[in-house]
């Protein structure tokens, strides 16, 4: 039994005597044009695959773009005025953390440092990295550098990197000296979940070490993080802070997270490209399904004329075309979705942060159903407009 026969057998079982004869006619006519059907199925599979992978890339990209912000345990952030994303923070006075504690609703405030610096390996290779450190109380889900360093017998200058960057920085899991910002340091542990989406490794260290690596002034920090007292709305406290400190930006954690995502998505054009590719997948699928069903409809236009002559309503005709469209969509879509998992696993060595959220499959499935309905509306035109009177002339 070849592939087409197997598919036909499955469809036949689906269309048992209890099913609609119109649906049977729709599927049988589809199977009669097997060459066209296979081309359509592969096209739809590709389009579905493209929609799912591009959608997942877009989603993973947005999550990755704000991963550090989302990991810090803080309700509010103070950063230099006009900073478009966390990745581009510049220094502000660390005294803002003390000033802020005087504002009503602020529970506590801490400091963080982040910035770009070169890391140099013993062999002289140099790579630009983003180095990040936050006072331990606000560390949240960031790697516990101090704790790990203590366990490893290091008192300071310890660096933790994401496992996906280990090869780039030549780290084999054993303590390895390096220089960050031309200051002695040690790569000593790997973490997960902080893969860089722009190719520049993220390195985590203790707040005071990061300040040293970045050569920040004694009175400066890169950002100030704050928590609000229980019962206070962070947005209300944010407004109070904004009113008090006009020369810095104050954002809630969610706002800064969104701001960082939107920066990478829109202002860099990277997200727009991914979004466009996803839409392109939808467009390709629509054209392929519509074209295939249109051709099959045109091929069977005499049968539609007979149906209309016998009194079939436009709804009857639409039903036949819709069933054909849905069968194409379901078979092609399933094939495409089945390819997504293996492809994503295989491509993790290149796009380390790529993940397919569980809801992406039903989301793409619903989009595909919409696509099929739309395609059937286009493809049904020759059948709807056929003159039933031609049955007596042909």
């Amino acid at each position, binding site marked *: 039994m070849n592939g087409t026969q197997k598919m036909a057998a499955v469809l036949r079982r689906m269309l048992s005597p209890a099913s609609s004869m119109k649906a049977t*006619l729709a599927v*049988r006519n589809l199977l009669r044009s097997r060459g066209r059907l296979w081309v359509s199925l592969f096209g739809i599979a590709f389009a579905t695959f493209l929609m799912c992978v591009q959608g997942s890339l877009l989603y993973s990209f947005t999550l990755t773009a704000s991963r550090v912000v989302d990991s810090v345990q803080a309700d509010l952030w103070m950063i230099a005025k006009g900073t478009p994303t966390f990745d581009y923070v510049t220094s502000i006075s660390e005294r803002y953390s003390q000033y802020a504690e005087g504002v009503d609703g602020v529970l506590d405030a801490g400091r963080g440092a982040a910035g770009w610096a070169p890391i140099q390996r013993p062999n002289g290779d140099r790579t630009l990295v983003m180095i990040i450190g936050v006072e331990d109380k606000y560390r949240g889900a960031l790697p516990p550098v101090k704790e790990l360093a203590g366990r490893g017998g290091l008192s300071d200058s310890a660096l933790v990197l994401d496992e996906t960057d280990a090869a780039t920085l030549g780290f084999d899991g054993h303590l390895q000296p390096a220089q960050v910002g031309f200051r002695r340091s040690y790569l000593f542990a790997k973490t997960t979940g902080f893969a860089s989406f722009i190719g520049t490794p993220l390195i985590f260290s203790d707040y005071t070490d990061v300040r040293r690596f970045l050569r920040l002034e004694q009175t400066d920090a890169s950002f100030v993080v704050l928590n609000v007292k229980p019962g206070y709305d962070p947005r209300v406290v944010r407004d109070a802070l904004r009113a008090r400190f006009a020369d810095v930006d104050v954002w809630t954690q969610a706002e800064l997270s969104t701001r960082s995502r939107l920066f990478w998505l829109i202002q860099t054009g990277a997200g727009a490209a991914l979004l466009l590719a996803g839409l392109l997948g939808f467009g390709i699928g629509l054209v392929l399904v519509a074209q295939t069903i249109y051709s099959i409809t045109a091929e069977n236009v005499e049968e539609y004329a007979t149906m209309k002559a016998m*009194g*079939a309503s*436009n709804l009857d005709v639409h039903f036949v075309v819709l069933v054909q469209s849905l069968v194409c969509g379901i078979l092609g879509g399933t094939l495409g979705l089945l390819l997504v998992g293996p492809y994503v696993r295989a491509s993790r060595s290149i796009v380390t942060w790529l993940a397919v959220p569980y809801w992406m499959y039903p989301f793409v499935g619903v989009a595909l159903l919409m696509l099929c309905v739309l395609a059937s509306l286009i493809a049904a035109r020759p059948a709807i407009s056929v003159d039933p009177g031609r049955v*007596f002339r042909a």
Partner: protein
Amino acid sequence: MHSVEMRDVTLGYGRGVEATPVLKQISLDLMPGTFTVISGPSGSGKTSLISILGAMIAPDGGDVIVDGINVTRLTDSQRSSFRREKIGYIFQSFRLMAALSAEENVILSLEMRRVDRRRERCQAALETVGLAAKAGLKPHQMSHGEKQRVAVARAIAHAPAIVLADEPTASLDAANGVQVTNLLAAIARDPNRTVAIVTHDPRVIPLAQRVIRLEDGRIVGDGQ
């Protein structure tokens, strides 16, 4: 009693100086229980007449009244509904769905007509045309005569008030032509059914109870 009345029906194709009149002031009545044959040479307007009778096209003028309903005043959607409920068609080229078996072709027709007890009705119709044993065959597995008998079964399965046939024997050999004609004549004996066929097959004429002869868009003969 179902009856079909045509009053002063006219039809033309084209416009202006290129307009070609096809039917000219046709008036006729078709009564149930009568096997009526509409005959005439090619181009005489037979197909146009049956298309109007079958509510496929609307005439340019005149009225077609079936069961008191003026079909010419129906919208497209109402005409579809009218065809679905009132009429059974038999075509020269059978027009069976190639992907469906004989039984499925009949059931599809019943399904579109929103008729219940489809399998029973289908079985009865196929028995009437003597094809119950070949219900599972697809059109390509049947002879021309068998295909046309399936088409007859499809046309009568929903018990329509009117059965219209367009050259039903034209594609058949002598034996099958006679068989299908006899079948139609038998169907026409139903006192509640009006049967009209368009043909110029001389084998059909002797079985007709009424022969309407068309020439150049006019009725030139109407006899028993």
